[in-house]
């Protein structure tokens, strides 16, 4: 066990990769796994799954992105197709981007500002019948225009700090205008990009591969000759593939047990990068069902849970780690521990908290309440969270059974409101707290809220926070909003934020973990030390 801990410490030191000062080597084919079945389509604009972005990001460019050398930062945005990050004008409502003139599509034709503008016009104002999956992110964008061959101007409806993160969406691939004009659905089944790799082959549900783009606009990149991504939905297969070096890694994240097993068996042939993950499971009571329409009962559910002792224990067996509020813990807008301890469910004295939970349940006439917790048939961390939570609730006299459903029926249950209390989740791409916390808005405003409540005060507080451009005032507004939705109303109950654990063969260099499994997946900087 000591050896394992030693190896673990050694491997986790890769959080600051040891290869940072090494000279990259050219060549080789990189094989990795995508822990999923075939993605619904290859079109990043319409899909929300990592199965799409892990398979297709290497083929595309984006306008701006999170810095691939500093992907853990929540605010370090850099240009991809633009030449420099612009300074806004018109009180933050006009953003003018100069576009690189040395970029070619994989068919050899030049990429221009018209392609960028058309792409963003489709994302913000999609044609009828065309799906733009993250449309609510772009609520602040009014118009997008190409004023000349190398200039794109974004005009906003209102200034907000949420604009740049929205623009850096890793799914927002730049598509070719000529193709979009001809058939806006073309990209669902085809690939034509300007990214570091050219498309070679796609076997549905099996693999996708690409070769080095010799005309890539970043000198010297990519380092690899090519890549092959294999779809492997079974975790046991992934571990076997890494163990036998049939594949070097997978980028979504593995549970602690898989990390421990690989370290034990492969020692220094494995490195592990870990970090907070911009994903969190939460508990959503159905306000449309008694007694969950009563805020006292919802608060009691929150007060029964010992977050501070549960999180470090769960981190040993599930891919969760950090206690947090509604904002990603690494963000400047996130609550400190002291601020969290003022909110129901985060009190430092758990006995006092549970005594209050019992009092509230008694007052609400819900002592010895029995109910069903709906959950998704996904092992990590959903089922682990549920097992923990059910035991926590039993400590205040609640009798809870669990109903686990496959993903399809689970979403049907969420949308139809056929549950007492459900495990819910909030996974986002880039860290963009002002928009990410939209999850707590009523369903009539935010379609992916399943609490079945209407709350005008909730909406008003959110809008005030979203439109606040002063960072200090915005942080105060966020605290008020957080206190309201987690404590006063207890619309939802947070669980520890996820931890991303990515074990990979030690010869893989040049990739840095980020808080999102959607980000930094174009493979341009990856090289193989073989």
């Amino acid at each position, binding site marked *: 066990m000591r050896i394992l801990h030693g190896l673990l410490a050694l491997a986790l030191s890769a959080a600051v990769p040891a290869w940072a000062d090494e000279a990259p080597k050219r060549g080789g084919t990189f094989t990795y796994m995508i822990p999923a079945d075939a993605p619904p389509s290859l079109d990043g604009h319409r899909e929300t799954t990592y199965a799409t972005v892990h398979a297709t990001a290497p083929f595309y460019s984006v306008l701006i992105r999170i810095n691939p050398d500093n992907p853990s930062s929540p605010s370090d945005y850099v240009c991809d197709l633009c030449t420099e990050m612009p300074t806004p004008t018109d009180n933050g409502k006009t953003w003018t981007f100069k576009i690189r003139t040395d970029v070619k599509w994989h068919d050899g034709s030049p990429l221009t500002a018209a392609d960028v503008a058309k792409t963003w016009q489709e994302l913000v104002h999609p044609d009828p019948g065309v799906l733009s999956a993250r449309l609510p992110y772009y609520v602040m964008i009014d118009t997008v225009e190409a004023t000349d061959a190398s200039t794109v101007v974004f005009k906003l409806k209102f200034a907000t700090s949420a604009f740049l993160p929205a623009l850096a969406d890793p799914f927002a691939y730049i598509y070719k205008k000529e193709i979009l004009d001809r058939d806006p659905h073309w990209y669902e089944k085809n690939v034509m990009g300007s990214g570091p790799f050219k498309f070679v082959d796609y076997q549905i549900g099996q693999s996708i591969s690409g070769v080095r783009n010799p005309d890539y606009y970043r000198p010297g990149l990519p380092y690899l000759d090519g890549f092959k991504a294999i779809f492997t939905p079974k975790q046991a297969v992934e571990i076997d593939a890494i163990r036998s070096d049939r594949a070097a890694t997978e980028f979504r994240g593995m549970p602690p*047990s898989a990390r421990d097993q690989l370290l034990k068996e492969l020692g220094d042939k494995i490195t592990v990068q870990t970090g907070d993950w911009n994903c969190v499971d939460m508990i959503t009571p159905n306000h449309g069902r008694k007694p969950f329409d009563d805020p006292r009962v919802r608060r009691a559910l929150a007060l029964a849970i010992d977050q501070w002792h549960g999180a470090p224990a769960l981190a040993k*067996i599930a891919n969760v780690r950090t206690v947090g509020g509604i904002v990603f813990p690494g963000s400047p807008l996130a609550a400190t521990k002291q601020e969290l301890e003022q909110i129901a469910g985060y009190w430092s004295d758990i006995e006092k908290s549970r005594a209050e939970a019992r009092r509230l349940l008694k007052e609400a006439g819900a002592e010895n309440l029995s109910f069903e917790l709906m959950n998704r048939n996904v092992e990590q961390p959903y089922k682990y969270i549920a097992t923990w939570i059910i035991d926590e609730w*039993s400590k205040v006299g609640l009798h809870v059974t669990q*109903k686990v459903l496959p993903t399809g029926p689970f979403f049907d249950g969420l949308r139809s409101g056929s549950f007492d209390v459900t495990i819910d989740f909030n996974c986002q791409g880039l860290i963009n707290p002002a928009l990410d916390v939209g999850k707590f808005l009523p369903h009539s405003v935010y379609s992916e809220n399943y609490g079945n409540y209407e709350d005008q005060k909730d909406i008003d507080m959110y809008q005030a926070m979203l439109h606040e451009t002063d960072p200090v005032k915005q942080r105060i507004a966020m605290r008020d909003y957080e206190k309201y939705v987690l404590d006063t109303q207890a619309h939802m109950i947070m669980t520890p934020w996820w931890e991303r654990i990515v074990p990979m063969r030690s010869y893989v260099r040049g990739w840095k973990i980020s808080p999102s499994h959607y980000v930094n997946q174009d493979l341009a900087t990856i090289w193989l030390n073989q």
Partner: protein
Amino acid sequence: MSATVVDDLPDTRPSVWQAVWKFCRRQPLGTFGLVLVIIIAIAGATAELIAPYNPTANDFAAMTEAPSWEHWLGTDQFGRDMLSRIVFGARTALIVGLTSAAVGGFAGLVVGVSSAYFGGMIDLIIQRLSDIVMAFPLIIMALAVVSIFGPGVHNVIIAITIPLIPRCSRVVRASALTVRSMPYIDAARACGFGATRIILRHMAPNVVAPFLIMVTSFVGQAILAEASLSYLGLGVQEPVPAWGLMLQGGAEEYASTAPWIAIFPGLAIMLAVLGINLFGDALRDALDPKLRER
């Protein structure tokens, strides 16, 4: 003939205890199976008394602990005592196994005897429906039923019971067809007895031997099916202790670092099914007149 004459006949039937003793002497493996089943049944029935810990209580100070004096069979990834979960899991297995076997067996008995008694179009329809259901393996049929009704103990019982009915009815019908042609059935008809009385009073008791053998084997099959469904995430759900569920998730993840999480529930399933099958085989031998005299 008077009642006195009948009473004067010597009673050559052995007492229950004599029959049990004879069974034990002639069927040592079956006796071993019966002992296993009794132990499991007692464990399930008295779980609250004999389990050393609450089977659903997490103990983060004792996660994945190897077997020790504190935890004889170790703990799982949540620090839950494996022995307590296995003892309570016996209850889940027996509830599902016995209920499915009893309900499926009794329904199969009624359907099989009725099918044989009425014959003709009713028999034809029942048998073809049975063919359709029996065309699917038990676990596939159970999976289909669970996918319709959803997971949970009650739905698992329904899912396992439905495919057992035609399996039992087919065997019972074969015996009942022989019984139907017996003179006493004709006599009962001639006396004007109704179909229900003839089926339940005169035919069903005479097909009890194959019925009992079937039901015994059903218990083992039902326990295995429940474990399979739970293993696939479609049966009993956490935190309810169930052997198949204990083999899912944690057992897979910790197979190399904490193998006891997988070994002991697997062992429990194996012993339960082995015990029931050994007992069932011995029961068949004991009830079969041809084998009984050997």
